[in-house]
């Protein structure tokens, strides 16, 4: 790979990368950023140097993701039913029942195959010893998978010479697998279930991904107003009248799904959807109330959760985490504020994070005040030597921090898309890879197993 990249040369790489990015803009492979009431379409910056994962590394990652998803689903089933994990004293009750993402509506409601988190994205980094560690679980509506596949298409168009002869695991069948899972979870007895993707619409920043997934699955992209509930059954409005809908991949948050149950002011949801679901007339992926499992506070307990349900050691380690709601965790955090990364438990997208060693005294004081004001809102983690990958920069090819988000699809069983989204911090030294804060992405290559 190194030889191939040098054969293209820096200038060649830059010219092709620019052309590739223009291509993304023309194709509208963009996300929308809103500022000052203006909508700006941005591409996710693309780094043309692929991130390579060996077959052996992937074996471990895949098994680890599978294990994690299994534990998350067991956990969700348990807390919405008998709550053994609470009565056995593994996870404190108030952490679950007092969690803002806990949904009483889900109590004693069975979902098919016990699958709650049908689509899961697990954020993984490598520490300074090369060990994979899970940074965060995303069990609500994780996004980014469209870029995994589009990045591969882009590489094929712009860098055929880099890909030539490489035995890579394909990423093209994600849509098919997703549709399969959504078909499996449809209500029993429906012969040819109608699957749809429910999107908030064109003004959502991830609209491109919604379009992408609807197309890859070959199912209609519907908005709330396209759906109507009659007699606790879901229908879509078509030119030939109402047509039954059996399985919904929803890309809007719990709060907005059904104004009769959640936020009454939601105009993008479907009134009566939850009732239809509880009657067993429609499947919804992901299930409502999965947010309690990917909460940053619950994250700290994940190794214990895995052990409790699966009786296995975690294949992928957590980053060591101090729970500030516990006296010991808070004390350690306050004591070592300047060494730790302090994260709010409720936020996503990299917002609200204080990186101790890179903060001014004033920033540390602010973090300390916030911690003391509401300790249960915070966790802290040690700084880890986040993994880097070679990245094309204005200064040449330089190391930049990156992470990996593999995607798991679960219906009857779990399938993991080989590779995942590699996000890269394009600014030197930056640890924040989120697209909303200037991160980019790379094609992720999983080398195929050689025939034994």
């Amino acid at each position: 790979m190194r030889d191939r990249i040098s054969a293209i040369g820096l200038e060649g790489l830059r010219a092709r990368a620019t052309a590739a990015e223009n291509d993304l803009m023309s194709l509208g492979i963009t996300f929308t950023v809103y500022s000052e009431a203006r909508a700006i379409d941005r591409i996710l910056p693309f780094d043309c140097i692929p991130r390579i994962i060996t077959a052996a590394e992937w074996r471990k990652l895949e098994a680890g993701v599978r294990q994690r998803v299994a534990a998350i689903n067991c956990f969700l089933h348990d807390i919405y039913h008998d709550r053994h994990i609470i009565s056995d004293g593994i996870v404190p009750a108030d952490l679950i029942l007092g969690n803002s993402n806990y949904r009483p509506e889900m109590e004693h409601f069975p979902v098919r195959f016990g699958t709650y988190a049908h689509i899961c994205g697990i954020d993984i980094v490598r520490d300074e010893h090369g060990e994979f560690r899970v940074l965060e679980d995303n069990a609500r509506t994780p996004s980014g998978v469209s870029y995994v596949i589009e990045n591969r298409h882009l590489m094929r168009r712009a860098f055929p010479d880099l890909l030539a002869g490489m035995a890579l695991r394909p990423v093209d069948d994600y849509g098919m697998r997703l549709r399969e899972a959504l078909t499996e979870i449809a209500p029993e007895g429906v012969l040819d279930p109608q699957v749809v993707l429910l999107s908030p619409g064109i003004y959502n920043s991830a609209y491109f991904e919604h379009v992408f997934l609807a197309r890859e699955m070959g199912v209609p992209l519907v908005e709330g107003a396209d759906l109507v509930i009659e007699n606790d059954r879901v229908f879509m409005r078509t030119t030939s009248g109402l047509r039954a809908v059996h399985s919904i991949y929803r890309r809007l948050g719990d709060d907005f799904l059904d104004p009769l149950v959640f936020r009454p002011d939601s105009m993008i949801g479907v009134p009566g959807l939850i009732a239809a679901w509880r009657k067993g007339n429609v499947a919804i992926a992901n299930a409502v109330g999965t947010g309690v499992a990917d909460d940053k506070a619950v994250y700290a307990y994940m190794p214990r959760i895995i052990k409790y349900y699966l009786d296995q050691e975690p294949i992928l380690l957590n980053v060591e985490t101090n729970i500030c709601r516990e006296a010991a965790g808070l004390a350690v955090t306050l004591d070592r504020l300047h060494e730790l990364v302090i994260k709010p438990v409720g936020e996503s997208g990299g917002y609200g994070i204080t990186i101790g060693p890179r903060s001014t005294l004033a920033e540390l004081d602010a973090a300390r005040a916030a911690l003391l004001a509401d300790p249960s809102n915070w966790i802290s983690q040690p700084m880890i030597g986040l993994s880097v990958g070679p990245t094309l920069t204005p200064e040449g090819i330089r190391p930049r921090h990156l992470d990996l988000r593999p995607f798991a699809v679960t219906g009857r069983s779990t399938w993991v898309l080989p590779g995942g989204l590699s996000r890269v911090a394009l600014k030197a030294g930056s640890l924040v890879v989120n697209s909303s804060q200037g991160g980019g992405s790379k094609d992720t290559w999983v080398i195929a197993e050689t025939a034994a």
Partner: protein
Amino acid sequence: MPLLARYAEGLFWLARYMERVENLARLVDVTQTFESPGLEAEAWDALIRIHADEEHFAKNHTVLDPEAVKHYYLLDTSNPSSVIGSIEAARTNARTLRPIISTEMWKHLNVFHRELATVQDWELRGDALSRLCTRIKEAVQTHTGITEGTFFRDQGWHFYELGRLIERADQTTRLLDIKFHRLAPNGREERQLEERTQWGGMLRAVAGYHAFRRIAPVDFSGDQVVSFLLADPCFPRSVRLCLSQAEWHLTQLRTSYGLRGTLTALEQIEEMRGALLDRTAKQIIQDGLHDFLDAMQRDLITLAAVIGRAFFRDWRPAEPEVATEQSQSQSQSQSGGGSQSQSQSQGTTLRSTADGGITS
């Protein structure tokens, strides 16, 4: 495969907006050729009148200056029926349609939209204007060609074509009207010569000049041009051909997709064809061409409304509580679909009843 009512409506309007853009470019181009020295403003005034934009135009302009009119119809974003306004609306529709239109259709429209935003005022002046009009026209033709070659032909395609044909028929009546505003029916010999030159210019604007030459006598008269544009069975932009093609698409929807709601629209076309063929062009001109064209435009609005009521978004199985939304589409004035209601919600928060803007 069922088709979402929202998609059907979006396709109908996508095609309408694109067709409108092409015709607007043709109209501006031909208006320039109608400019008589010293009477430039008169030619451009006609453009405003046939679009019934007098009031809206007067809001932002104090004098009727040719440059201002050109800007108003090509680049003025505050004018929803300008080229730039229509492209904006077409792209918004295309965005909602991305799940079903071809990637190539979307990409072309997206790039065209971006290019149009870079057009400078100097391109509206002198010989540059005609080149700009050609560029716009050819971009729409590229869109049409990409659509022809890549768009999956299930029922969505029929709705797309219906939108295009209704808009095209409407635009042909407007083009004829511009001519009506310019000329009195009779005159002396040199007047007739000038008339003939102008009729020729109009025929060229709709790419019909040579076809007309083949079927018309050498010393043609105005009513033969009128007849050609209204009732010729073969000319792609004649009202008659548009109607019979629309009829074919409605029939396909009826027979291949079982859409029985097409009946009212089919009857409407039947009536319009009657009005078109019952009288000769000479008689129509004698009875008043402008009034005839006006009635034809109103009939086309009704036709679009009938299709909308039967199949689009506001189609509802008799549910009284949503009846208020019925008026959302098709209540537009002469120029068909209007502006977007861009209630930005960032997807997560609230949204007005508007659906992110499919139609007016």
